[in-house]
């Protein structure tokens, strides 16, 4: 029996309840049953699973007798332990090796104590009773610590993380950085594929014209006429006016805008051909 049987998903004994006998038959705890009564196998199975090993069982027996660990009546504890073991064996439950090793240890301690004490020259020898007590004490500390940890205020049982719904968040993804070189390499790639290097030579001047074309188009957003003059900004100087004019011509050529003049020498108006 390892503690596989008492993993988180398995039924675990109630915290704090492990000092009580887990199965009662006719009001008597199962631990006494081997001598007096027939043990219902179910009860024994529950009993068997409720201990975390031989040290835990021993602690239980000691507590039940109101004994101090340092003051164990080894004979009595050994008798009870053996009764338990033999009951379990009689039921043919598989018993972990740890329980049998403990049975042997107890038997050894008991037999030693029946012998007169000898002044041992062999001081190195570990007193098995002292060793047992040391292990029981050690185990008891951590058994207690486990109970203490279980008592700590814990998330999702004693407290809950407070959270509120999020407001609308602006794009949380920061924008990637782009290097001009990357942009040009991309353009180079696409132009090479399209074999556009020779046929569509984009020049500097042409680019400022195209920029102005975009600008004029954005001014012409909507289904309204704008006076031809308003497309020009004299403050830009001659070059600016020429660029605007070229852009307008290009837009007319590309049939993106239309020009209307109601009367001869009357005001000229411009509007986008495809209104939004």
């Amino acid at each position: 029996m390892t503690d596989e049987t008492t993993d988180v998903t398995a039924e675990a004994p109630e915290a704090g309840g492990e000092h009580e006998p887990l199965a009662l038959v006719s009001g008597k705890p199962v631990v006494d049953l081997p001598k007096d009564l027939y043990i219902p196998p179910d009860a024994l199975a529950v009993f068997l699973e409720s201990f975390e090993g031989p040290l835990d069982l021993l602690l239980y027996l000691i507590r039940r007798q109101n004994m101090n660990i340092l003051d164990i009546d080894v004979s009595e504890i050994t008798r009870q332990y053996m009764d338990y073991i033999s009951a379990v064996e009689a039921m043919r439950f598989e018993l972990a090796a740890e329980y049998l090793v403990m049975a042997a240890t107890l038997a050894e301690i008991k037999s030693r104590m029946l012998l007169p004490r000898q002044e041992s020259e062999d001081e190195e020898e570990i007193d098995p009773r002292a060793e047992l007590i040391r292990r029981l004490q050690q185990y008891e500390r951590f058994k207690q610590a486990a109970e203490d940890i279980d008592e700590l205020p814990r998330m999702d049982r004693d407290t809950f993380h407070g959270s509120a719904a999020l407001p609308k968040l602006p794009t949380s993804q920061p924008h990637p950085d782009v290097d001009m070189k990357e942009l040009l390499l991309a353009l180079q790639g696409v132009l090479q594929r399209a074999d556009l290097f020779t046929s569509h030579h984009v020049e500097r001047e042409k680019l400022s014209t195209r920029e102005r074309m975009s600008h004029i188009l954005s001014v012409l957003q909507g289904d309204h006429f704008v006076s031809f003059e308003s497309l020009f900004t004299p403050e830009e100087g001659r070059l600016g006016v020429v660029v605007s004019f070229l852009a307008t011509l290009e837009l007319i050529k590309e049939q993106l805008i239309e020009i209307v003049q109601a009367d001869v020498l009357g005001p000229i108006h411009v509007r986008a051909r495809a209104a939004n």
Partner: protein
Amino acid sequence: MNEEHLARLQAIVEAALLAAGKPLSVDQLRGLFSEEERPARQVMEHVLTMLEKSCEGRGFELKNVASGYRLQVRQEFAPWIRRLFEEKPQRYSRALLETLALIAYRQPITRGEIEEIRGVTVSSNIIRTLAEREWVRVVGHRDVPGRPAMYATTRQFLDYFNLTGLDELPPLSEIRDLEEIGREMEENMQGEIEFDSSEQTFH
């Protein structure tokens, strides 16, 4: 119903709304209480009003939405909250960069025209990403069937690349020199690779 009792109800309701992580209806809130201590609907509504007032000046507020009440972080704090969820910026795809380059050099240009040059469809995602970044915008529609939108670059685009105008974009003739730059970059990369794995040889 004394004040102390109401204050306690208010605290329990607040705790529940913070723990639930979803809106709770008045009846769901009342369901938190055992039958004997369950407040009437009116009382619960009063408690919710109290709670709403108590959130004034705080980081969150009580909102009444379709499925009930919820506590929500105030919209005004979104600029700070956003930083909690920021991820490392990714890189733009080749397709996006090509699209951007074509819009920059051939504007105003429709999606169809970009597709014609690139030889593949341009995904709506790419256009949306570029528009969200405010690098491109629609400047009009071409007067052909379907009236496709024409795209152009923006001032923000120029600002990002430190240009005062499109005419400062490198001319295509320079782009030819890029082949050299491309080779250079490749060589640099090789250098790195060689450094990483000095046993390998490149020819």
